């Protein structure tokens, strides 16, 4: 079949880019509903308990998670910096911004791991432990996935495969990263603060 190449040739880069970005947005919509279910469970269980946290449990201190919030919000800024740089063809700047984002995101995970280890309560400690670790754990898994995406972008950029013309992946990763960031802000304000 000599004509097989048609499929790939006719799907020109611009169309492929639009398809990919729409696909990512739709995927994020589905993820919003997933976190919606988790948040719904949290609020229902919390509203039915006679006081939160129940049974004299203590919420974690705000210092580390507060620092984590700062880290993640700044990482959204550096991510957007990367998108802007590659749009203007500044490959070196993009790689710097991407590395910064990776560093901020990884620090977030390390701090969260430390927090989990020192919290003094576990997944099996009643509804408080269940909701706390399930929600933050799901979010943490998403952070890891986002870091994986960025690592892929970084590797491909190093091989010169990312350019002003071909940077759909950077944009896609940035959509996802902003979403993960927004979920964290919601988590931080409901699980830790309010």
């Amino acid at each position: 079949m000599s004509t097989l190449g048609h499929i790939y040739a006719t799907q020109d880069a611009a169309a492929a880019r639009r398809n990919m970005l729409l696909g990512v947005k739709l995927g994020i919509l589905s993820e919003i509903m997933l976190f919606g279910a988790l948040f719904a469970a949290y609020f229902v269980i919390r509203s039915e308990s006679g006081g939160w946290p129940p049974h004299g449990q203590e919420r974690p201190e705000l210092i580390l998670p507060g620092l984590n919030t700062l880290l993640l919000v700044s990482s959204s800024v550096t991510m957007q910096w990367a998108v802007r740089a590659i749009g203007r063809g500044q490959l070196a700047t993009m790689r710097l911004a991407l590395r910064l984002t990776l560093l901020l995101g990884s620090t977030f995970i390390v701090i969260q791991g430390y927090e989990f280890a020192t919290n003094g309560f576990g997944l099996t400690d009643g509804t408080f432990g269940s909701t706390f670790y399930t929600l933050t754990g799901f979010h943490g898994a998403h952070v890891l996935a986002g870091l994986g995406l960025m690592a892929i972008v970084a590797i491909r950029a190093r091989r010169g495969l990312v350019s002003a013309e071909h940077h759909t992946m950077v944009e896609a990763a940035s959509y996802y990263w902003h979403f993960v960031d927004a979920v964290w802000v919601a988590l931080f304000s409901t699980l830790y603060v309010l």
Partner: protein
Amino acid sequence: MSILKPGLLRAVLGAAAGVLIGAGGLTLARGSGMDIRDGQILALGYLLALLGFVVGIGAFRFWLPWAIGRPVDTTAEHAAHGTAGDWRRYFRFTTDHKVIGVQYLVSAFLLFLTAGTFAMLMRYELAQPGLVLGKEGYNTVMSTHGAMMITVALISIIGGLGNFLVPIMIGTRDMAFPKTNALSYWLLPLPILLVAINPLLGGFDTGWTAYPPLSQQANLGQQAYLMAFVTVGISSILSAINFLVTVFRMRAPGMSLMRMPIFVWSLTVTATLALVATSVVAGAFTMLLFDRVLGTSFFRPSRGGDVILFQHLFWFYSHPAVYIMGLPGLGAILEVVPVFARKPLFAYPLAVLSFITIGVLSFMVWAHHMFVSGMAEFFHIPIMLTTELISVPTGIVFLSALGTIWMGKLHFKTPMLWVFGFIWAFLIGGITGVYLADVPTDITLSDTYFVVAHFHYTIVGGTIYGLFAGSYYWFPKITGRMYSERLGKLHFWWFTLAFNATFLPMFWLGIEGMRRRVADYPPEFAGLNLWVSIAAFNIFLSVAVFVFNMIWSWARGPRAAANPWRAQTLEWRCSSPPPVENFEDIPTVTDTPYQYGTPGTAAAEGGAAS
């Protein structure tokens, strides 16, 4: 052939390796004194087996090199699209949407037969009062029948007919993400296998709804079902994204949204529902799995959890899921009607609007499954009203079919017979739904055979009648052969009579108070139950006629012309079966595809069969 080549053999080996590492590793760890539960062994074994299977089939062989910046082997990528006439492509990670469509369709029918066999076992138990399979055995048979049939209804039309036809009907060469499309299909075999073998893991008792606390305490078979359901959900989300991007970004020139075939419209709404709703139930089932496997207490009332919460989350997906099952059937019916009535589709824009309205409303009615659950009282009346409201757009879809038939020049070919069967069955399903939407009657009828009858009239009447109508209608396009009209009509009449003989008496049984999901019943119901069982066996036999017709006609049937029905949607402009790339050149669409009754009109130009 090397066993390291991507393919079924490597996939099976990969799955076996996953079980060995996951389940074996944890068993060893338990042997050395660690506190590990059976459920954790099953969970890790299954997860790694799924990974091993998908890697083994070759799902990641293009993505992985791409991710680490290696040059992508484009020759191999084109080869993964499959060669026309090569039967082996149906057993591989093939990216051609037509191959994937056939894979889905054949798998769905195999699953349909398996689930049907479980239904026959149920009717065998229920043919007379007393116990044959035993209570636990009956529960497992009933639950497995439900779980499998739900999967059939979820994947058969959109996965099978939809994958095969949507890209052709909107005039493009493939789906937006062919590799993801193939991944969606190859995620399915393992969970389906897991549900099929759940009796070996002790079976499960809850039915497909998996309500806690029973589902927290039940056997490992229960956990198998939960994990399988989440996997099918992930596959369904990936497939929904693919459909939506394809439909919104890849239509042929001139194919405006309001010129899309109604079948494509119904699948678009279906995919939107699947995209938005599925992750909610995936979340709910994950929390339930965490309760079982990791010791959380989301749904454990003894530790502050809430069982009603599970029902809310479950039905928030599972009521839209009824429309995920039903809308593709309605779409297939509306696609068939104009062709065999030789009239334009009646009220096409209103039918489109109705599909969208059904989609929106379906998110506001879920709690009508929970009138007897003990949920908040104030919720009853609003939910009752929205539930009754949804019959308005559904009625408009119905009227669109009736209005097209009215004064039409009817051709009673097999697909059209299924349309009439649909109208009868879905009408009964719809009318009896009113009694279940109304709070007072629902409280009386809840958990009786009235519900069973209503459900089967809507889902068999909507989905399965649509599936059969569509399967006969598109059989020439998919296989390039004509089916046997005589066997098709025999199938229709036998199936329809047996189906009605089975489920109409169940309304009566339900009103008389026979409870559903129970293996035994009082002796006064014996006569009707024997009748129902005999009728049910007839459904199974009639499906055997269908299976024979499909297999025999696919092998030996007369060759089909490109457009045997003189239909106007784009798929009939391709040869039967369509060539690998569907169109030699992409057609230009000039009108809706329902320009029947006016000689010399056509809805599109170009795109001739190659």
